[in-house]
């Protein structure tokens, strides 16, 4: 679902970024108000789970691939605003260091995966949770929520792709950017996500969510209205058990090379060299003439290293940097305690 550069017109990219600015602002504000310094640094772990999730590519019939994002997962554990920030940072690292998702398209990617996904996922989970009052109800709710979350996000991406050829054409009438209209992009994206990728997201979310429920000492955001001590979100003063939320992260990190098994490129994530072969028949002008940002570790691979090693290394660097960034952010958040 990572939109590369030059698939969207600069106008679209600018619009999406403009939409994200207030969203980020509100998220930061909320996180500052609601969370303690220590739990802010835990958002990093959430971001790391999202980063890793996106590295597990799964083959989808038809030659493309898909992956989990974990937006709803983080929203359920830390709240949708924290999730927005967590996914944003994961996406930023992917764009800057690994060339996954474009620089100009960053705002659009954030809109889909850091805004639409966690918020839709979270509020649907919450709705379902209200109906399912039994003990494991939360797991069922996040499962359902995450399915809707990822599909809402991919629908957004499909629309962004699909409107391009109607709006931006060159003199010869050929599409400047994404060559596929809504009639192609929506089915392509949605079939992938309603089936395999959606399932992947649900499995990933449930797996990590139930692990965290056992291993972490935090009260989950989703549960705050459903337990007696609603105040304790992110409150670590009740430290009965140690926090082991990083263990699964470690395991997943080592497993990431499984994501390499999926051959092919996800729909809409082709490089400029691949696009003509997908059936478009030509390479749109905007792509050959657009920006070409060279990432430090492009496509999670490095010259001189076997792919598996490079993939694990990328996972390590991505996870570690996400954690570092949120630990740093937590410092600016000076010991404020919710009133």
């Amino acid at each position, binding site marked *: 679902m990572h939109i590369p550069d030059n698939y969207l017109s600069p106008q679209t990219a600018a619009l999406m970024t403009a939409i994200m600015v207030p969203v980020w602002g509100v998220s930061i504000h909320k996180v500052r108000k609601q969370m303690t310094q220590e739990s802010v640094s835990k958002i990093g772990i959430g971001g790391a789970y999202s980063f890793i999730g996106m590295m597990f590519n799964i083959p989808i019939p038809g030659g493309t691939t898909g992956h989990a994002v974990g937006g709803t997962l983080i929203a359920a554990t830390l709240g949708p605003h924290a999730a927005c920030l967590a996914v944003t940072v994961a996406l930023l690292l992917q764009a800057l260091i690994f060339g996954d998702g474009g620089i100009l398209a960053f705002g659009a990617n954030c809109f889909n995966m850091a805004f639409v996904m966690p918020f839709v996922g979270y509020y649907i989970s919450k709705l379902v949770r209200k109906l399912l009052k039994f003990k494991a109800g939360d797991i069922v709710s996040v499962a359902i929520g995450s399915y809707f979350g990822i599909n809402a996000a991919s629908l957004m991406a499909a629309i962004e792709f699909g409107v391009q050829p109607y709006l931006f054409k060159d003199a010869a009438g050929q599409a400047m950017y994404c060559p596929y209209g809504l009639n192609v992009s929506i089915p392509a994206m949605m079939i992938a996500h309603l089936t395999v990728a959606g399932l992947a997201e649900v499995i990933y979310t449930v797996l990590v969510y139930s692990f965290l429920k056992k291993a972490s000492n935090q009260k989950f955001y989703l549960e705050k209205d459903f337990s007696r001590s609603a105040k304790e979100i992110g409150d670590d003063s009740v430290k009965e058990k140690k926090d082991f939320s990083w263990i699964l992260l470690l395991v997943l990190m080592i497993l990431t090379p499984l994501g390499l098994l999926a051959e092919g490129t996800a729909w809409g994530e082709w490089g400029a060299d691949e696009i003509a072969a997908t059936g478009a028949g030509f390479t749109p002008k905007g792509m050959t003439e657009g920006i070409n940002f060279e990432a430090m570790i492009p496509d999670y691979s490095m010259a001189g290293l076997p792919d598996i090693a490079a993939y694990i290394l990328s996972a390590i660097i991505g996870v570690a940097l996400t954690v570092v960034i949120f630990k740093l952010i937590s410092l600016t958040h*000076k*010991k*404020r*305690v919710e009133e």
Partner: protein
Amino acid sequence: MARMEFKNVSFSYGEFPAVKDFSYSFERGKTYCIEGPNGCGKSSLFRIMTGLSFPDKGQFIFDGEEITEKKMKRREFATSFHQKQGFLFQNSEIQLFTSSVEDEILFGLVNMGLPEEECRERAEKYIHMLRLDHLRERAPFNLSGGEKKRVALASILAMEPDVFILDEPLNGLDEDTQHWITHHIDMIKSPDRLIILAAHDHHFTDKVADIKVRMNKDHRLVEE
């Protein structure tokens, strides 16, 4: 209106608490002594009063206005705030930064914008009162412990502000100077002036304090 008001102030150095849930009003015209065992948080409280540190929780209100880190970043605000106070650090050794005793005392006066004439007069007066005449030209950091304390005291007292905050003013002073200070504090009391002291010597606090404020080793105010 209270001169200084603490509302549920808590403050800590990283993980180490220094002041917990402190609420108190310091009124004009009174002299307060803050007492308590070592490490109870007296000096930390003073750092908040002087705007060097800020509460983690709760509010510190001076003359009806809450003092926050953000406001103190504004130069004019900080200026007018600091000008109302004279603060003697507990370790006065590091409070001295000029290269002669006379300059040390003049420094604050000149910066208050007093006319030169008056600066010199006041400096003279306090140099004399604290018996520093023979040390006038000496470098403050090369003096004996008690002499340093005297220079620091002179430089604060000379500013004659409305609010005095003195952290263990008697420490290391000889007995004559101790008596002088006790007497001087009585002299400078006025209906407009707030004086806050920390001290461990109850003979002294009995003499000068109108009101005693006690903190306990749990960093909390002891209600009497």
